[in-house]
């Protein structure tokens, strides 16, 4: 009887873990950029897209990819409306993101490719073309 109960508890825990992992994967599909930046796994790049700071789970990678695809679509749309290149729109957006969206402790990457962490309230450095 005890063995049966132990077995049922173990099975229950197993399902919970499996279900939990699946839930985490599903939940990650709706993480906003703010939430992703807050995890410390993801940062903002000067080219206008999000990037992985180090290694990250597959769910995070796919969410970042999905967000970047949406960003490129918005950049393309605005570029067409304003007679600019997609890259100009993307980098201009990054200038604005660096100025306003990177909270203390969050990660950003300048064109040199190095990930840096915003130190307290210090201003996030920007490429010179940002003005």
């Amino acid at each position, binding site marked *: 009887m005890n063995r049966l109960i132990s077995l049922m508890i173990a099975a229950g825990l197993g399902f919970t873990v499996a279900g939990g992992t699946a839930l985490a994967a599903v939940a990650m599909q709706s993480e906003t950029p703010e939430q992703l930046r807050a995890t410390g796994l993801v940062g903002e790049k000067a080219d206008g897209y999000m990037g992985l700071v180090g290694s990250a789970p597959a769910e995070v990678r796919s969410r970042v990819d999905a967000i970047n695809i949406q960003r490129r679509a918005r950049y393309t749309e605005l570029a067409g409306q*304003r007679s600019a290149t997609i890259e100009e*729109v993307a*980098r*201009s957006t990054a*200038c604005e993101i660096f100025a306003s*969206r990177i909270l203390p402790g969050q990660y950003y990457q300048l064109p040199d490719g190095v990930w840096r962490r915003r130190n307290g309230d210090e201003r996030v450095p920007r*490429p010179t*073309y*940002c*003005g």
Partner: protein
Amino acid sequence: MGNWTRNLACALVCASLSGCVQVTAPERPIEINLNINIRQEVVVRLQEDVRDLIQRNPGVF
């Protein structure tokens, strides 16, 4: 010991050994030109639109 003399000493030591790494920093900062041809005037021109873009797309930016 000035930078020049230090560099000369390092170079001589490096030359005499079979494998050696230069640990003194270069004189000038390392410049990385990635051929980014973005002009500041374009960034300024797009600034308002880009702010709108960010605000209108909360799940994306």
